């Protein structure tokens, strides 16, 4: 008995393991969306669009490449985290019965939600590490802090996933998802400081963006990659990011509880 319980893992980690095993079969398409996609955006906008940019004074970086490179890493985390919480999460709760089945095991809905959010964070952290390699090849070694940026990307993805899953896990149907994808996730990707400084946005929009987890994820990632962060500033971004992960995790757990107990 003791031997068995010593080997037994936390229920949330079992959910993580479930996702890992499921994803192993589809690794190539995950590589495609998680790495090739952002690399493509980086090359197209960093080199292509970057070649057209004359005035880099508002960016706060040396050139457009070093601005947009880290921006795309964290921006992709916004998209991956947000999109994961739409059809895929809803499907696991309502369509394919995965989480209904898991709910019959000793795992509680909160643990299932926790494992779910940890996995998306890990997945994005892994794909961001590979993206970081490409980025550093293009812009050169910037310092050891850059190595922390994939974790920030993972946190950003978890925060976005948690906030959106807080809605999807309660949704009655999938009718609103394409609207959420196009009118919430895409705008957050484009306007959170990925391609241009948030300071250039209209004032009200800028204020709103500064409340969102994606903005703090992007600023922190960019600061780490370019080694341009003050300790206080960096910790500030991290605290906001963690707070959003917490708020989202509570909302998602409650949503999972509601859906899985009926």
């Amino acid at each position: 008995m003791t031997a068995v319980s010593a080997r037994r893992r936390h229920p949330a980690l079992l959910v993580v393991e479930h996702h890992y095993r499921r994803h192993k079969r589809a690794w190539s398409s995950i590589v495609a969306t998680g790495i090739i996609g952002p690399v493509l955006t980086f090359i197209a906008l960093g080199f292509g669009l970057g070649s057209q940019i004359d005035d880099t004074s508002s960016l706060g970086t040396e050139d457009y490449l070093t601005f947009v490179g880290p921006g795309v890493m964290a921006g992709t985390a916004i998209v991956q985290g947000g999109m994961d919480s739409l059809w895929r999460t809803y499907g696991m709760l309502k369509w394919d019965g995965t989480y209904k089945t898991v709910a019959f095991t000793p795992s509680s809905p909160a643990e299932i939600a926790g494992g779910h959010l940890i996995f998306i964070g890990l997945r994005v952290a892994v794909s961001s590490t590979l993206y970081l390699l490409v980025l550093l090849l293009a812009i050169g070694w910037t310092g050891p802090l850059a190595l922390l940026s994939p974790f920030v990307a993972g946190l950003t993805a978890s925060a976005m996933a948690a906030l959106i899953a807080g809605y999807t896990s309660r949704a009655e149907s999938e009718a609103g998802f394409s609207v959420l994808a196009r009118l919430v996730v895409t705008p957050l990707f484009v306007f959170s400081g990925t391609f241009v400084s948030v300071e250039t946005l209209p004032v009200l929009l800028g204020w709103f963006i500064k409340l969102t987890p994606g903005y703090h994820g992007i600023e922190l990632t960019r600061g780490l990659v370019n080694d341009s962060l003050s300790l206080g500033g960096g910790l500030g971004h991290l605290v906001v990011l963690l707070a959003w992960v917490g708020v989202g995790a509570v909302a998602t757990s409650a949503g999972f509880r509601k859906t899985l107990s009926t």
Partner: protein
Amino acid sequence: MITPTAAIRSVVERNLVFYRHRKFMFAAGFFEPMIWLFGIGIGVGELVGGVDVNGETVEYGMFVAPGLIAVSAMNGAAFESTYNFYYKLRYSKLFDSMVVTPLRLREIVIGELSFAVLRSSAYATGFLVLAAALGFIESWWGLFIIPTTLLIGTSVAALGVWSTTFMRNWHDFDYLGLMLQFLFMCSATFFPIDVFPGWAQAIVRATPLYHGVAVCRELALGSISTSTVAHIGYMIGITMVFGWLANRRLDKWLLS
């Protein structure tokens, strides 16, 4: 029996009825390129002095807006001829229900693709009005952007349905999404492609969207030349080739 025209019209009508109750879902596809227009065209545009088009320097917004009209045409047609087409065939089994009515397979496909083109042109026309209101369309030639988007939509629908016949599962659509992203970002939409090496330019020039973007831009700026005609000719060629290829594969694939 019903005439082929009536059959095709009834398939288009089914789609119209479907979206009548999902207006917001339909409209969302129009707003997405708009977000890119504001984010990149206007946002990043402030950092760009001007872009060179056929030897003439144009303001960045005027460079990007016509390109995004072409993109919105591509998106509308691509969505209907790929994801939705596959969903109706394999998941909702809509086509299975349709073939037991007097509709013939050929009419169903043509009807679905006609709706794809209509959807694409609806987005593009809406986007054209927005771009004109923002002052990004300089010439009355810009009105010809509407028929151009019909051609872009048709070429993308042909290419889209052809590639859908190769899809084995939803994961394969991730690669399709990557292709669409490549076309969206690299078809001279946001920057002239001469910043890329020759081989990369050759790849871009082979795709229909590059030519669609070029025609929309030349019409918007009113700088029509023989190159405009060449771009249009290339798109017609691509449409015919992929329409033929798709036609050959579809019967076998639909009945499998």
